């Protein structure tokens, strides 16, 4: 009775194979990524932003919410002209990018803004991925009516221009960073659900899944241990690109007064405060915009690079 059914052994061996293949693929992907100019520049930009976000309290010369009015050595005047930029030969005062309309240090606010933007981008996309992938996994694996109901609901959500739906959700539930974050996550759920469902449909009929099913594994284990890891490639690419989109949407919501509320140092909110002063103090508008653009660009470049590096069709050619 100690003898083992040979077919089970071969199935077990077959299970090992995809893992070693995936290890090789990981190495190959990393190699491809290093060669990809767009991925490297994207990763550098994002790495730089992460460093800024983490070390903002050390890098920032002032408290981002501290008004300089009445402080020693400060003129206390609100900005009406271009900022006094130290590297361009301006000696004093020490505000590299000048002061904002409440006499706060723009440079410090910009540095702290990286924290909010990265937080909003990553959290909302993570939330959307968790909910979207679960829905997509269930829809693709179970099929039938469940699939139909979930996917029609996703179609309806996709029928709205995403920013507009996010605006409506935040208007209804009240402005604030948390609601904005939830709204951005909700409007991006369908993208991930569709993506994962398509991957599940192509993976679920493969032999190693059939083998697992034949071994009597419960559906949850098949879904999360066998199928899900095989859907990761498109998810990583879409997720990276999605963070860029989420950062833009969060900035837009804050610009409309629906996202981050004053005095929080958030780039969209900084633009919103300064928009009426663009003709007299353009630097207040210029720098937060550049910061948003750089963040989005970083994630877009990395996403594009990942897509190229992870796409096996490109490796073959």
């Amino acid at each position, binding site marked *: 009775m100690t003898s083992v059914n040979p077919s089970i052994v071969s199935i077990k061996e077959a299970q090992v194979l995809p893992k070693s293949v995936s290890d090789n693929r990981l190495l190959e992907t990393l190699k491809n990524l290093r060669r990809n100019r767009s991925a490297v520049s994207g990763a550098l930009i994002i790495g730089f932003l992460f460093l800024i976000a983490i070390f903002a309290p050390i890098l920032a010369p002032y408290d981002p919410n501290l008004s300089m009015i009445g402080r020693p050595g400060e003129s206390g005047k609100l900005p009406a002209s271009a900022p006094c930029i130290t590297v361009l030969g301006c000696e004093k005062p020490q505000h590299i990018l000048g002061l904002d309309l409440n006499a706060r240090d723009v440079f410090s606010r910009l540095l702290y803004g990286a924290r909010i933007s990265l937080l909003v981008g990553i959290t909302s996309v993570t939330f959307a991925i968790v909910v979207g992938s679960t829905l997509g996994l269930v829809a693709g694996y179970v099929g039938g009516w469940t699939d139909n109901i979930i996917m029609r609901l996703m179609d309806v959500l996709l*029928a*709205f221009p995403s920013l507009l*739906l996010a605006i409506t959700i935040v208007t209804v539930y009240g402005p604030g960073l948390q609601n904005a974050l939830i709204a951005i996550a909700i409007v991006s759920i369908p993208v991930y659900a569709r993506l994962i469902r398509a991957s599940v449909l192509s993976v679920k009929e493969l032999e190693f899944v059939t083998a697992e099913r034949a071994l009597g594994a419960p559906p949850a284990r098949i879904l999360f241990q066998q199928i899900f890891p095989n859907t990761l490639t498109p998810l990583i690419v879409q997720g990276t690109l999605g963070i860029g989109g989420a950062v833009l949407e969060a900035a837009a919501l804050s610009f409309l007064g629906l996202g981050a509320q004053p005095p929080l140092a958030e780039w969209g909110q900084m633009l919103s405060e300064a928009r009426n002063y*663009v003709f007299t103090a353009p630097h207040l508008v210029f720098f937060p915009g550049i910061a948003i653009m750089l963040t989005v660009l970083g994630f877009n470049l990395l996403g594009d690079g990942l897509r190229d590096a992870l796409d096996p069709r490109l490796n073959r050619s």
Partner: protein
Amino acid sequence: MSAFILRRLVLAIPVLFGILLVTFALGRSIPGDPCKAMLGEKATDAVCIPLIQRLGLNEPIPTQFAIYVGNIIHGDLGNSFRYGRPVTDLLVERLPVTMELAITALLFAIVTGIPLGIISAYRYNSKLDVVTMVGANVGVSMPVFWLGLMLAFIFSVILKDTPFVLPPSGRLTAGANFAPFYASWGLAATEQTASSLMIFISRLNILNSVLTLNGQQFLDAVRHLILPAIAVGTIPLSIIARMTRSSVLETLGQDYVRTARAKGLSEYRVVVRHAVSNALLPVVTIIGLNFGGLVAGAVLTETIFGFAGIGKTLFDGITARDYALVQGVTLVTAVAFVLINLLVDILYGYVDPRIRLS
């Protein structure tokens, strides 16, 4: 072809129904008292009870939904308390402004994006290609409201004393009063006597200026439209350029293109007739999908350039927490989005027989 169109139309019905369901659910999930949400915190029971009865807000949810759908079919999107007028009237007045902006922006994106994409693909990996693609990456990462503000600053402050100066705000010069076409044509004397359609058309400033042969209005309308159209059009332009480039690159490598070259056709004919005409099919889909981005861009850009379009209206609705207005604008835009994608689908089926037969 008609079976294909019918199938597409039938498929759009559940989505349209779903849109109604979502906007209804959002409207009903406003926290707190719906009457106070509509009329403000100081609304008394004396005002609220009749209003709630009139709007059917005390009815069961399915009945409320039926009333909501019934009202929409009759063109009633509720009343905006911010403006004290029906939302439908506001949309008839303001939708043309947004349409004009979105169409101009899209035209700008197509006219610039497609040639840039084709040239980039044809001169693959050249300096021009690299510059275009870096530009497209930057363009797609730019916040549209920031670009709008920067353009306004550059063209109205930095270029103030040059011939390139452009107005930073307003749809027409302040105080300008141009006759609507229905008055010039003797169809209706005033706005009160004109039909909704006439008002709608007359608000399309460029079309109105053509209909009334008014060169001054035409120039004024175009000058005010340039900066917002560039701001709104930059993201679609970048996406179209990238899509065209990759699509043309793919077709240029196909066997039939090589055959065309081998036949001795001129390079222009090979690229434009053989490669590009086939490569543009996926670009058509991308253009349709970009409509959502255009509307979002218009919402943000109109507030910057002071256009009284639905974007600005939506913004005013948000700041005043005017739910009927926000709900109405969302509904109309989503329906328009679905219809435009339907149109693109049908167009796609028309130009590519493989789609309609699959």
